[in-house]
């Protein structure tokens, strides 16, 4: 019955505007349906009137489409949390939780928390939620693994190793997992910590002779989320300590979540034992969003902020910001601020040329020759050396990087690129571009080099 309710909601979602749906049907649950009398749980009393007067016939129609007879619909206020527990309980064996009034049982749960006064702080930022994480082709795998982690912490994907470039949403996703688990299991001890802080805590604990405390703090956790793990490089004792904590938590089936900007095997000087353990449940990556994903992100952001923005403006941004999602959002906020300030819509601003994305449309102003110059200079070669037929490895790589950048940044055709860099024909260029495209995914020093060159070109 509760699965059917999902279909009912989906049906309703199709028929009314998205903002209205997310406002009025978020947290609305089916409590019971029997003999044509349907009881629907709503988050608070403000929803009642609205559902009764405006959406009553729609709900009725959608219920009946899904073969639930609804002669009468009752709306009952219940908190979101309770609704969730209730739905879970009812599906597992038709137990319905009784509402309890404030009594001593509740207090007992409270008292130890007050007394041991651990001031336990999970470091989770409530602004990161699954609800505001936009799902696209670049991250759908990561999201489905995240959901599995949320539903069964410590079971299937343990450790959950998430990697990807900066600004693609690693921190958002892992914090959202933490927040979601905390909501479902309020008694869980969850800790989000960056690798830097882990290191600092560890060093302090040794300095103050409080190693035991440090040990206890981590070993009593139910979920450990550690961010930016690549920073562990060169911190051998921290690595050792993390390895021990990892093993202890893992054996107790506690969930471990690790993020990094690269695969464990690509983190230099990482202990092999640790490296193989981190990757044992599979490493999941977040990729650059494509054009459609970027549009979806901006649209959802606009909706979240309650702003109305022209599609063309969104497409313009998605087209022009090529670095990462953080920059995309930054550019978006900048245009909004400008638009408030000037009293013009974002599209008017763009059309009037009043706004040029900080590091994006500059692309247009760059000449092929500049790119070639910068690449040659970066690799300490003369343009003549680089644009030739030399097959010396480093010269060849430099040439291929130049081809790659000409294609990526200026969208030049391969025959034109062949002319610019002085190679035989366009197939050589195609091969070169393909090679670099493949290499940047696994060779992180090459990726950094290319970022550096871009910076020099546009900086």
């Amino acid at each position, binding site marked *: 019955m509760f699965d059917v309710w999902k279909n009912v909601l989906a049906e309703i979602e199709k028929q009314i505007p998205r903002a209205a749906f997310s406002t009025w049907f978020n947290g609305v649950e089916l409590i019971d349906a029997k003999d044509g009398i349907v009881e629907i749980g709503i988050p*608070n009393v403000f929803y009642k*009137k609205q559902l009764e007067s405006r959406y009553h016939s729609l709900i009725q129609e959608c219920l009946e489409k899904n073969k639930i007879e609804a002669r009468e619909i009752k709306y009952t206020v*219940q908190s979101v949390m309770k609704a969730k527990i209730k739905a879970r309980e009812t599906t597992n064996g038709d137990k319905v939780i009784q509402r309890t009034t404030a009594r001593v049982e509740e207090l007992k749960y409270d008292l130890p928390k007050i007394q041991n006064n651990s001031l336990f702080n999970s470091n989770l930022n409530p602004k990161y939620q699954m609800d505001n994480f936009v799902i696209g082709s670049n991250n759908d795998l990561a999201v489905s693994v995240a959901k599995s982690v949320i539903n069964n912490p410590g079971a299937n994907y343990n450790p959950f190793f998430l990697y990807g470039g900066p600004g693609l949403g690693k921190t958002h996703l892992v914090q959202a997992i933490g927040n979601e688990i905390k909501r479902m299991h309020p008694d869980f001890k969850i800790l989000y910590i960056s690798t830097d802080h882990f290191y600092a805590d560890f060093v302090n604990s040794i300095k103050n002779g409080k190693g035991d405390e440090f040990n206890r703090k981590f070993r009593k956790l139910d979920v450990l989320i550690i961010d930016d793990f690549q920073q562990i490089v060169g911190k051998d004792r921290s690595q050792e300590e993390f390895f021990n904590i990892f093993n202890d938590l893992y054996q107790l089936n506690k969930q471990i979540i690790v993020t990094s900007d690269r695969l464990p095997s690509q983190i230099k000087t990482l202990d092999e034992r640790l490296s193989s353990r981190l990757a044992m449940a599979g490493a999941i990556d977040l990729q650059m969003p494509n054009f459609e994903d970027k549009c979806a992100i901006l649209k959802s952001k606009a*909706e979240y902020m*309650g702003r109305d923005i022209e599609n063309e403006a969104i497409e313009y941004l998605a087209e022009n910001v090529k670095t990462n999602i953080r920059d995309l959002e930054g550019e978006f906020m900048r245009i909004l601020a400008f638009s408030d300030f000037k009293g013009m819509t974002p599209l008017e601003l763009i059309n009037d040329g009043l706004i040029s994305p900080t590091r994006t449309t500059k692309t247009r102003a760059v000449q092929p020759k500049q790119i070639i110059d910068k690449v040659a200079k970066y690799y300490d070669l003369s343009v003549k050396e680089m644009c030739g037929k030399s097959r010396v490895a480093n010269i060849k790589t430099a040439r291929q990087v130049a081809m790659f950048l000409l294609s990526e940044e200026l969208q030049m055709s391969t025959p034109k690129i062949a002319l610019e860099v002085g190679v035989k024909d366009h197939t050589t260029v195609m091969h070169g571009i393909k090679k670099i495209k493949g290499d940047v995914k696994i060779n992180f020093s090459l990726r950094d080099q290319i970022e550096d060159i871009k910076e020099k070109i546009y900086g």
Partner: protein
Amino acid sequence: MKIEVTQGKLSKALNVVSKVAASSRSTLPILNNVLIRVDDNKVSLTATNLDMAIVDYLPVSSAENGVITVPARLLAEFVSNLPKSETVVLETKDNKIITKAGKYSSTINGAPADDFPELPEIDEGKVVSFKMGVDEFKVGANQVITASSNDLTRPALTGVFFNTNNNSLYIAATDGYRLAEKKIIEKVESGVAAIVPTASLSEVMRSINDEMDEIEILFDDTQVRFRIGEIEITSKLIDGSFPDYRQLIPKECESEVTLNRAELTRITRLAALFAKEVGGSITCEASVEKNAFIIKSVANEYGENDSELEAAVTKDEKVTLNSRFLIDVLNVVDEDEVRFGFSGKVSPVVIRNEKNQNYTHIIMPLKV
């Protein structure tokens, strides 16, 4: 619809109402609007964020019936920038509202009132209601709000618990580390146990101004309504159970020290400077030998702090607290002298006013 009203009155009303409209977390654009309704010369401004709704009844010199919704913040800001002495005329035309004041005028696009959510009704025949002075209410609410939590995973603690006990009305809040309770009405006829969201209560406090003198509070099963002056604020109640907090308040402290509030605030702040590294933990001591109350804090790297207050001490005591919590309570107690009650290292510290015993604030000690 047409309304004529002075700039001062309109601006004040719009300011109060537009705050609620702006606080909406929803993406539904109409929630950013204020609903303006004229019905038989009665003008009301309404806004809601779906957790609460505010209605402000505006006294006007003349009005024609009608209804419209317009972006609340824009209208509020426009009106607040008009000269104080002007009479403002609001008039609707199609779905627009034209605002005129002397030489100044604006046209703001609105939306039809049909799209505005219908607000829940309260059957005032079936409510439990209380009345009290606005000033006492404001002081009392301030004193407990400070202890309420913003941890959304424990919804019951994000509110203030209105409850009756032995025919008195109390309000209480706790975040699990400290707890504040205030008796706000000495003798009441009816009983209540309801959790009012702290956010809604803060909005009530913001709406109070000097001209108001009485507040009426009405509860039904799912909502609460505050009526102050021309303003009516209706909020959902938090559906949950508040911990049986009375058991946490020690019946009696081992020893009490009476201290000057300003002095105690000063030495707590001084100690807090050195306690940043250790999460704000400071040690409070009472010494019979020195006849003093002492606060100490240690920052390993930077140094340490040690301040004393002269005090009549009957027993040596020592307890470690979070300085932030102590500062919070010292900011809201309303007498010049406070009582600091010790009950050993692991039991809560109780802070009360020296004379009036209707306010109790307890802080759980930190384990060392």
